[in-house]
């Protein structure tokens, strides 16, 4: 907590802010973990059942097992996890926890970087297995085991003997020691070996391991789990047929990271549970980092965390960013300075300008009046958000089924569009409305039903009327069906009239009449109703999906500093260097450095001049020429009226400065010493002037 307090500029409610921030983050963190767990549940359940199946056969020593034993197949689960390798750790951790609880205490997690050879692999494997053995069997003689672990020759046979002794021990112990774990595990639990990143293992190691362990499968109930980031095909590419035939592979697919992200956004952002919200640009930055850089949900959440911290750290009024129940108390305990802070908010200023003069004065001078008003506005903001989410979901129901998805397929795209500006003023919205006016009836009805469900489940109080209205539409549609059948009768009758025998004149006349009637009617009742529905949705959108920036006091709830976020998460160190070297004025606000165009002044820092000069060179740079050029520039900057004689002799100081600048460039990685020619350096970058 001391960190928030230590900030110098304002001491306003820092502690409270820090506490709010922490509690909010903890809430969100546990929520995300919950989501992750829920999403993985299916996968883990499948895996557990697979493991118990493979195990039970060994347990019962049934014929099936023996027949498999003949073939020496190792039961294997191939876990396709997707490219976001960094997220896998969490999945594996959950997996090993679940297995530990349900199946077996003997789990080894192996990573390719620890196993460059089969020997290391065995070492690691045995180390992990025997350690977990200690965990289960209490810590009787840790030292002894530690020593023995180092001494045991790492071979399969020692592993088997260890396994036998362990299982025997637990067998004998189970009746005496009443222990939860042993009762949960079977008598001879399988040994699960998880290869976290199967692709990065060397094929040799993998093959050897599989062949060796398949030899011993009847003594050691081994189960393999492969973590795969690419595609299941990789197993066959890595292993020749002779080896892969030793595996009995079952494939498991984890949820794609995009779906994971959608769920996260759905549960964290599109909910009124958390008072903290992300602004449009911030969300856009986070999503872009996800889509274009790493596909990592963890990083997304990390970015979210950073947003929270930044918001509460930099915005003194964020103390009001709390649950609605606390708002009142907090608003009334605001200090005068904080009230001034509120008055300084641009959105609040806009609000004040719209009020009549009497109220304006009250708002700007009377603190308690301001507080009342603030409380009201904050409540409004909460209500707005609740409504926003529900209507957004309704709109998404419509737009997500339109051809070509003018407003985006995902709700996050729609959300971004709505936050960015008035969505009803955009072209995409226009075209999607047009498309919605062409929906067929069944689609429309199901959509309306979905909307009704969404609105019913939402906590907003204003939606009673809306729901009623929508239900009315639904009943009208049903009525239409009945009417439609009648109408069909009418048209059939007219058709029949046509079929009567008639002369040319009459035919022409009736045809004209028919045409006339069609033109005048133009819209069937269904079409009318459809228009009405779409218009109604449109009105809802206009009413509720106002961008947050237009709301008063949005600064308190919404975090909008996208630049800060981007700078911290997706930095471009090379560009910063580039700017500093090419345009030092950007950083050093000195008039002498200012210059238009792309050039730099000759009074720029030494390193900039040296850098600029080196840009003019090809692959190799002659140090003497470089020095010569540098001293010319520098002397021109320092003593414009220098006589020719002194300029002939390169000053020692300039020489030293040059040396420093060159070695700095070397440190930065622009040049390196070259042996190709004496007193030359090689450029490491190409181009760029």
């Amino acid at each position: 907590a001391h960190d928030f307090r230590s900030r110098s500029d304002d001491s306003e409610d820092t502690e409270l802010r820090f506490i709010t921030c922490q509690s909010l983050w903890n809430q969100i963190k546990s929520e995300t973990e919950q989501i992750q767990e829920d999403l993985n549940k299916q996968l883990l359940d499948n895996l557990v059942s697979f493991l118990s199946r493979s195990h039970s056969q060994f347990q019962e020593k049934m014929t099936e097992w023996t027949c498999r034993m003949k073939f020496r197949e190792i039961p294997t689960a191939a876990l396709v996890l997707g490219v976001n390798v960094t997220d896998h750790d969490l999945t594996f951790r959950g997996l090993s926890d679940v297995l530990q609880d349900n199946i077996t205490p003997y789990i080894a997690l192996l990573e390719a970087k620890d196993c460059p050879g089969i020997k290391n692999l065995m070492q690691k494997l045995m180390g992990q297995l025997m350690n977990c053995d200690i965990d289960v069997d209490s810590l009787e003689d840790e030292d002894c085991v530690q020593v023995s672990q180092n001494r045991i020759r790492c071979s399969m046979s020692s592993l088997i003997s260890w396994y036998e002794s362990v299982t025997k021990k637990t067998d004998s112990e189970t009746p005496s020691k009443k222990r939860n774990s042993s009762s949960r595990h079977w008598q001879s639990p399988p040994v699960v070996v998880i290869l976290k990143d199967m692709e990065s293992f060397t094929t040799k190691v993998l093959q050897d391991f599989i062949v060796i362990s398949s030899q011993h499968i009847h003594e050691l109930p081994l189960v393999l789990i492969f973590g795969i980031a690419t595609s299941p095909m990789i197993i066959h590419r890595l292993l020749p047929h002779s080896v892969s035939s030793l595996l009995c592979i079952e494939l498991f697919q984890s949820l794609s990271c995009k779906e994971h992200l959608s769920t996260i956004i759905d549960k964290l952002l599109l909910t009124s549970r958390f008072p903290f919200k992300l602004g449009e640009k911030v969300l856009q930055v986070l999503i872009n980092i996800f889509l274009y850089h790493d596909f990592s949900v963890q990083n997304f959440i990390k970015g979210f965390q950073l947003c929270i911290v930044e918001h509460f750290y930099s915005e003194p009024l964020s103390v009001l960013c709390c649950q609605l129940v606390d708002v009142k108390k907090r608003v009334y305990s605001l200090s005068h300075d904080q009230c001034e802070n509120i008055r300084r908010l641009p959105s609040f200023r806009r609000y004040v300008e719209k009020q009549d003069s009497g109220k304006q004065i009250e708002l700007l001078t009377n603190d308690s009046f301001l507080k009342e008003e603030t409380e009201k506005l904050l409540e409004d903001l909460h209500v707005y958000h609740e409504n926003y989410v529900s209507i957004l979901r309704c709109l998404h129901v419509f737009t997500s089924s339109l051809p070509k998805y003018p407003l985006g397929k995902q709700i996050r795209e729609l959300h971004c569009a709505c936050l960015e500006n008035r969505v009803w003023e955009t072209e995409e919205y226009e075209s999607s409305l047009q498309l919605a006016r062409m929906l067929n009836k069944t689609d429309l009805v199901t959509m309306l039903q979905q909307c009704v469900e969404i609105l019913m489940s939402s906590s907003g109080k204003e939606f009673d009327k809306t729901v009623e209205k929508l239900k009315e539409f639904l009943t009208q549609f049903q009525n239409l069906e009945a009417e439609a059948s009648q109408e069909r009768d009418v048209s059939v009758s007219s058709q029949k009239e046509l079929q009567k025998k008639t002369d040319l004149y009459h035919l022409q006349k009736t045809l004209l009449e028919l045409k006339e009637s069609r033109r005048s009617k133009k819209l069937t009742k269904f079409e009318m109703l459809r228009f009405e529905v779409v218009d109604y949705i449109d009105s809802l959108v206009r009413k509720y999906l106002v961008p947050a920036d237009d709301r008063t006091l949005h600064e308190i709830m919404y975090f909008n500093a996208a630049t800060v976020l981007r700078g911290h998460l997706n930095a471009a160190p090379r560009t910063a260097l580039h700017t500093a070297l090419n345009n030092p004025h950007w950083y050093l606000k000195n008039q002498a450095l200012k210059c238009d165009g792309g050039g730099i002044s000759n009074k720029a820092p030494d390193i900039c001049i040296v850098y600029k000069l080196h840009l003019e060179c090809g692959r190799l740079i002659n140090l003497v020429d470089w020095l010569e050029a540098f001293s010319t520039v520098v002397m021109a900057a320092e003593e414009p009226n220098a006589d020719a004689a002194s300029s002939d002799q390169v000053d020692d100081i300039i020489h030293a400065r040059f040396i420093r600048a060159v070695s700095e460039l070397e440190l930065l990685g622009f040049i390196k010493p070259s042996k190709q020619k004496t007193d030359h350096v090689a450029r490491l970058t190409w181009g760029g002037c």
Partner: protein
Amino acid sequence: MSGPEGTRSSRRSLQVKFVPDEDVLKHIADDAGTKVRKDKAQLSVSMKRLVKKLENISDNEAQEILEEKNYVAALGICAQDPVGNGSNISGGEVYSFQTPKRSSKMAELASELAQTPEQNVAPDHSKCPEKMAKTPQSSSNFMWAEIVWKCNLKKKEFVSTTPYRLRKRLAAPDPYLESESEYSASCSEEEDEEDQKEVSTVLSSQKTLGKTKAASTPPPRNSLAKKIKEEKMGNLVEEYFEAHSSSKVLTSDRTLQKLQKRRLNQQTLHDLLKKAPLAYAAEIRDLNQQHESLFSKWMLQLHLGFNIVLYGLGSKRDLLEKFRTSLLQDSVHLVVNGYFPSITVRSILNSITEEVLDHIGTFRSPLDQLEFIIKRFKEDSSLELYVLIHNLDSQMLRGERSQQILAQLSSLPSIYLIASIDHINAPLMWDQAKLSLYNWLWYETTTFSPYVEETSYENSLLVQQSGSLALSSLMHVLHSLTLNARGIFRLLAQHQLEKKDNPSYPGLSFQDFYQQCREAFLVNSELTLRAQLTEFRDHKLIRTKRGADGVEYLLIPVDGSTLTDFLEKEDEDV
């Protein structure tokens, strides 16, 4: 999407034209004048259609470009950032290939300059006595050339020094050079006046350069000009390979020795730089203050599980040092000078286990050590450690293994890492896995302060190696040895010094050395000598090499001056 639809509808409206009978009648009855008018209208309609089509096409193109740029735009939101950390430069500028400036562009610029020649000599120039170069983009390209050219004027003995590429460009036929000859003529007058001064206009420099070049190096010019013509400022890739394929290096042959300039050693360099005033001290101080205001934020973020990495031009050592002194005084912290040439991950881990965890004992491998540290930190939640690493991207630490270990270390919740990077390719050290372990927050801290400490260990070409580092280590090791051993080493050193003028000196052969040692009563058997030499070799005091004839040669891998110093010091001691 709306684009193509638009065209279709407009075309249809033109093709299917409903002409009511009345109109037709009128049309027939109408006089010729109206007919013409109507035709005209028709014409204009078709014209419009064409225009519309064109618009559509360009619209589509624009759309595509927009889509392409979507990503850039989305990420480049910071364009409106007022505080600006210089990241609003597009990647193309930074990583560009060398594109020849289009002649038309240059002509444009030149004519611009021609119209307003005063602009080049900006008003404030006349005010301040010191002249500053307000050279626009393209003119700066010639700065180098121009300077060199001037040097040539001054010192006639210099050979041409223009870099290869530039020469090529100059040799290329420049249409605007002829067309704007009047301007260049007028400029050359100016140029005479400004001979001493740095600044002169693009054209003058170019023109004169062109002349001198034409005089001095005619043969390459022709061939290169032809080449350029063929290329037509074309393929960037080809250009790259063109520049990199030719093994011939077209630079001047001047060497530093001809400059009659003594090589500075580290100490004198340091003293000289102390004399030179630091430019823009006030501005740099401002920058630093700006960064220092972030200290408390860094603390907060470190505590929340992030690690912090600092980048940007200028030494960040002082900044981190200030951070340390102002905020970390009361907590356990470790400062790692990454730029130090003999730093290793092992030494970092050792200092953690020994100094922080008070563990005595050795580890088989760094990984074991790491595991031990992780275990200890997980057991004891009260343990907290701040690790400051200057130059995380230094030679010694940039290896994959070192980075992996450091990343794992930094992922511990109670180890707070704050590091700085300088190398342009530093971010390439980290893959996704390491990045997620490091959990970086990037902070741009451009300080513009000179890298004094960081470069002092560097083997710079221009600095004479004093070897003081090697000397002190030599002395240190030698002092822990027996008198006899020191004598043996002395013998070897003396012998090497005698032969220091012989560049192909292979070393002292073992047999000769043994003879000498025996004569000096230093050893009594070959075995003792071998044992001694093994010890030397373990401390990297000597190097053995097997010659072509199978004889073992012994060599001290230190330069002559250091050896002399060493012997002098030894004499003092004795």
